[in-house]
């Protein structure tokens, strides 16, 4: 059985949207594996990375504006 890699003639618009979301999901998965390999709790580390800066009341009040500042 032989396979060949060939360019798509037309890329559906939804694939253009799904690609970065899939990349983000894969990054989270690979990051969790990396944290586990480094000896850190993966779920807690991901929570601290991506949720904590905007979730807890103290963090949200202090960190979210920082996030906006960096974002800008």
């Amino acid at each position, binding site marked *: 059985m032989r396979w060949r890699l060939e360019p798509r003639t037309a890329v559906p618009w939804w694939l253009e949207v799904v690609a970065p979301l899939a990349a983000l999901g894969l990054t989270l998965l690979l990051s969790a594996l990396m944290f586990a390999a*480094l000896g850190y709790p993966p779920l807690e580390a991901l929570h601290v990375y991506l949720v904590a800066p905007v979730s807890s009341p103290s963090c949200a009040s202090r960190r979210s504006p920082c996030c*906006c500042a960096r974002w800008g």
Partner: protein
Amino acid sequence: MLLCALGLMFCFRAGVWNIGAEGQLLMGAALGSALAVHMAPDVGGWIIVPLLLLGMLGGALWATVPAFLKTRFGANEILSSLMLTYVAILLLSALVHGPLRDPDGSNFPHSRPIQDGALLPVIVEGTRLHLGAPLALLAAAAALFVHARHRLGFGVRLLGLAPRAAGYAGFDAGRLTWGVLLASGALAGLAGVIEVIGPIGRLNTSVSPGYGFTAIIVAFLGRLHPAGIIVAAAVVALSYLGGELAQIMLRIPNAVTGVFQGVLLFTLLGCDFGVRYRLRRLPAE
């Protein structure tokens, strides 16, 4: 990051691979703060506008070099813009160690603090959220208009997709190349001067922890579209803050933030490859 990524969006759409947004950001910061640190203590808020314009000028001037080299000699803009980044880093270092160094700063490499009147006003009391954030949103709205509704946006996209067709349609490739590089440099320079007269308050060698490079990831993660770039910039900004928080709470090295961003870029490239190509089974002979 949002400002840098918006500028890069136009470049990448036009097929101009400007990798030097970091250097353009630093030069914008340097030129803007060169004026800002010499302001009188009672300077009014009006000075912010010239400072922002000066920052844009600094970034745009730095982008003229790869633009000239590309349009005049056909030099590869990836190399010229990237190498100029390191020149900008050294120039910034020379400035804060030399002419712009704070004479009362115990020999630390930073400028004098910028007067309160020249600092960007905080828009939510008790936080660090300053005028730079709405300015960036305004720039995104303007970029969206140019990208989707303006003749120039069409020309930029056409140049990237089919350069010869752009020529037949009446667009001058050289002028568009100059335009996207200058716009990108100006936006990066604006980001640089906003950092200095915003959260930092003085010029130092660590104005940017690599925002110009990270903006490349942001631009591609946002699908080279202003709306996507706004969301992507928020996600990547979150990773910067999360990295700092993880260092404090879990003692995870801050370098992991760079690894996170690198993994994001590689998975994005992988997914893009999967989108543009497909595996086809060949019929048995």
